[in-house]
């Protein structure tokens, strides 16, 4: 038992510190991706409901592509493909510069693009739940469309979208486990290396899954609080207490 504890301790041969740093990378990547992915998702959702045919078409193609393509492939395309593409573009323009896509940025973009595709469906559902009459009423009050969206629509769709977005967040947290293929030292990166050195796969992958589990539990509690807050003043079905 002491032997196993020493392997995951913070001592000289313990993998505690690498795991901690991996957890930090995982968490910071997920947190950095979230605003980018959700904002893009909302934009896609608005395009999905647009009157312009081009915007609708773009949104449909976008969600089809990024929900359909495996995340790993998206990651490869952004990290390797984009680097190669920009490099050859620069070369053909006569620049002899070396372009390097930072792995963190690549991970953020790739995971953000996928998150946008999935969250856009949640946003569309929430937008559809707001009656048309509200926008008309806002227009009648002299509010500009952007004002109507910001002041009337957005606060309401946040409440409706929150549970779905919470789901998206959980999926995002777990998808970050792919980024070790682009040299980002996340939890899985260290779990794999720790396993190779210590030959204790159950211990090391067990620790990794416990860290993910802890993140999920904390997130679930956090989203519970947010949902309770956003539901203030709303009668909940079956909650006759």
């Amino acid at each position: 038992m002491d032997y196993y504890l020493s392997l995951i301790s913070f001592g000289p041969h313990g993998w505690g510190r690498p795991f901690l740093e991996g957890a930090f990378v995982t968490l910071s990547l997920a947190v950095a991706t979230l605003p980018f992915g959700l904002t893009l998702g909302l934009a896609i959702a608005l395009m999905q409901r647009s009157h312009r045919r081009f915007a609708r078409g773009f949104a449909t193609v976008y969600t089809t592509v990024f929900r359909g393509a495996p995340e790993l492939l998206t990651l490869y395309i952004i990290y390797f493909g984009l680097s190669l593409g920009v490099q050859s573009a620069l070369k053909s323009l006569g620049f002899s510069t070396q372009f390097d896509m930072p792995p963190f940025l690549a991970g953020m973009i790739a995971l953000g693009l996928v998150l946008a595709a999935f969250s856009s469906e949640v946003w569309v559902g929430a937008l559809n739940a707001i009656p048309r009459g509200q926008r008309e009423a806002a227009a009648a009050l002299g509010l500009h469309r952007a004002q109507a969206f910001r002041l009337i629509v957005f606060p309401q769709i946040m409440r409706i979208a929150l549970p779905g977005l919470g789901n998206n967040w959980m999926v995002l947290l777990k998808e970050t486990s792919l980024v070790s293929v682009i040299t980002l030292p996340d939890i899985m990166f260290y779990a794999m290396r720790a396993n190779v050195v210590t030959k204790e796969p159950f211990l090391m992958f067990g620790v990794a899954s416990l860290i993910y589990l802890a993140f999920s539990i904390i997130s679930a509690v956090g989203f519970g609080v947010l949902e309770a807050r956003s539901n203030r003043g709303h009668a909940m079905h079956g909650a006759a207490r």
Partner: protein
Amino acid sequence: MRTFFRLAVIATGVAVGAIGAHAQQKEWKEIRIGTEGAYPPFNNLNARKELEGFEIDYMNALCDKMKVKCTWVVQDWDGIIPALLAGKYDVIVAGMNATDERKKRVDFTTVYTRTPIAVIAAKSVASADFSPAALKGKAIGTQGSTIHANYLEKYYKDSTIRLYPTQEEANLDLENGRLDYVVADKMSLDDFLNNKGKDCCKEVGLIERDPAIHGPGTAMAVRKEDTALRDMISKAIEESLKDGSFEKVRVKWFKFAIM
């Protein structure tokens, strides 16, 4: 798609600006080295997050010899060649065999190790015969995208071939009884047989190298256009084999000859 493209161009433009374009030098003063960091005793990351292993010590010795500054990048095996081509580092030092298939995409330096290839199985396996006929219907495992995977797929068509992201996972499945045999470099398998696999498994025999599949041995990979770098490293390898600096590192990590 156009909006996305534009966004991507802006994002990458920002990245270029942020990093600062370092111009491609004709003369190599700095080399960035890509390795897997998950292949003991050749290269692995330890609990202090330092790289260690034969290849790490050996390459660092070569760097001293070439009087260049070397930095290491740890990249998963999947994507280790794409990352080289995308310019994430300049040379791969990761126990990579110089196969014809890989030569289509990268150039290799002089060979620096030639490792025996071993077959291991559960201790209960009595027969030392591991010919394709004897292993018909058996499950054989190894790491994917390796020469061993290619070898098995070519010669062991009637067996079930299982490919894993790392060699450790194949070894683990042999221990679990999900595999009947595992094929890989003898050195990496010895590491397993001397530690975790002490009680479960044993070596059945060695596979004779098939030059068409296994290639001439382990070499370092560079981008095809970096011929100057390739020649510079090749020269340093050849010198190290003659002046004893290779042997000095070898005896630290291996009890037997690896070249």
